[in-house]
C-alpha cells in the first residue's frame, strides 16, 4: 500500500474541536492543511505529523488524505548529491578513459 506523493503545504486550516477529549490526537481541533501537488489542491489531515510545527511552504508526503511525514529537504538534497556524485564518478571515469594514454 504505497502511493505517497510529495506535496507543498499552502495553507494551514484548523477545524472545529470535536468530542470530549481523552488524550488522543483527534479529540482536539482537526488539524487540516491545504496541500498543492503540481497545481492540484486538496485538504489533508496533518494530525499524524510530530510535535514539530508544520508551516506553509513545508513539503509533506501525502497518502490517502493524510500527511505521513515531512520531507526532509536536506536529506533529499543529500540523496540527490549522492546520485549526482555517482554520476560524476561515471563521467570522470569516461573522461579519464578518453584522455588516458598508456602508449
Amino acid at each position, binding site marked *: *500500500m*504505497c*502511493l505517497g*506523493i510529495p506535496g507543498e503545504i499552502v495553507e494551514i486550516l484548523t477545524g472545529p474541536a470535536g468530542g470530549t477529549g481523552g488524550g488522543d490526537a483527534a479529540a482536539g481541533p482537526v488539524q487540516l492543511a491545504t496541500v498543492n*501537488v*503540481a*497545481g*492540484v*489542491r*486538496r*485538504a489533508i489531515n496533518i494530525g499524524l505529523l510530530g510535535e514539530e510545527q508544520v508551516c506553509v511552504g513545508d513539503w509533506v508526503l*501525502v497518502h*490517502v488524505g493524510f500527511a505521513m511525514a515531512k520531507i526532509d529537504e536536506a536529506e533529499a538534497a543529500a540523496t540527490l548529491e549522492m546520485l549526482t556524485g555517482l554520476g560524476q564518478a561515471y563521467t570522470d571515469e569516461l573522461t579519464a578513459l578518453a584522455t588516458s594514454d598508456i602508449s
Partner: protein
Amino acid sequence: MTSEPIVDRARPQQDAGFSTEQQVLDRIDRARRRKPVIREERITLAHGAGGRATHTLVEALFVEAFRNPVLEGMHDGATVPAASGRLAFTTDSFVVSPLFFPGGDIGDLAVNGTVNDLAMCGARPLYLSAGFILEEGLPVADLRRIAASMSAAAARAGVHIITGDTKVVQRGRADGCYINTAGIGVIERPVELAASSVRPGDAVIVSGPVGDHGVTVMLARGELDIEADLASDTAALHELVDALLDEAPGVRVLRDATRGGVATVLNEIAEAARVAIVVDEGAVPVRAVVTGACELLGIDPLYVACEGRFVAVVDHAAADAALRALHGHPLGAGAAIVGRVGDEPPGLVLLRTAFGGTRVVDMLVGDPLPRIC
C-alpha cells in the same frame, strides 16, 4: 364560427353574455397564437408525452435556441439538398456527469464531439440531429443553458442542428440529461483516411496537451475534494484538421482521443494496421496540473479522455509540415510529435519512458480507477 348572434329572447341580458363568450373565445384564440412560453421550472413527464407540453418545450426552448429554417419546418424528418461526392455520417451519445463543468457542458460536448467525428473523416460538417432524454425534475433553466451552449457551439462550428427528439423519463433515471446526436458532413477532398494506410516509419502526432477533459470532469464530480485550475478542452477541430490536410500531404489517419485517451486510439491503430507504435513519454504534452492530479489519483494521463485533441499519423517526410500547420492554429499550439510507427511487434504500443526503459501501453481495461496503493 359564424357571426350570427345566438340570442335567447327569454333572457335579455344575453347580449352582454354573448360578447363575453366571444371575447373569451377571441382571447383563447389570441393566446394560442402567442409565442409558447414554458411556465414550469422543472421538466415533467408531460414534457415528454408528445402533446402540448412537448410542443411548448420544443418551440420555446430548442427551436428558440437552434433557430434555422430547416428545423423550423418541424417535420418528422429534415430534408436538405443532397451533396455530391461522399458523405460522412456519425452518431454519438453524451452521458457526462456532472452536466456543467469548467470549460463547458454536455451541450458543448455534444456538438463538438459530433463535429469532430466528422472532421476525423476529413469531412466538412454540415448538419446535426439532437435527441434528448431528460430526467423528470431537471431544471428548465439548466436545459436552456445546455441548448444555448449547443447553439453557440454550432454557430462556431458552422453547423446547423436541424432535427431532434425529446423524451422524458422518471426522476432517478438519465442523470439529468442524456443527449444523442447524429451528424452528416461532406467529404470534399480526395483524401482516404484510414488506419490501414499506416506504415512503419510514419510519425505519430498529438494535437495538444492530453487529459484535460477527463481530469476536469473527475474533479468536477466533487467526490474527491480536489481543486485545480483546469478546464475541459472541448472544441470543434474541423478547422484545425483543414489546416493540417491543406498543408501536409501524407496524412494517413486522424482519430480523436475521447474515452480511453491517446493510449486507446494508438492501440486501435496499431491493431488495425498490424504495426507497432513506439511513443516517447517525454514528448507527450501534458499540463503540469494534469500530471499532478493523475499522480495523486494514480492514473495515467495517456488513458484519460480528451474532447478537443486528435492523434494524427503522417508520413515521416511530412511530419514537420504537419506540425507547422497545427502550430499555426490556436487549437494546435501544443501539438507535438510523440512517436514513430515500427513494424515489430505488430499490434503493440510501446512507451519509451522518460527514464529510458521501455514498457507496453495496453488497451484500457475497466475504468481508470484511482490507484491508492
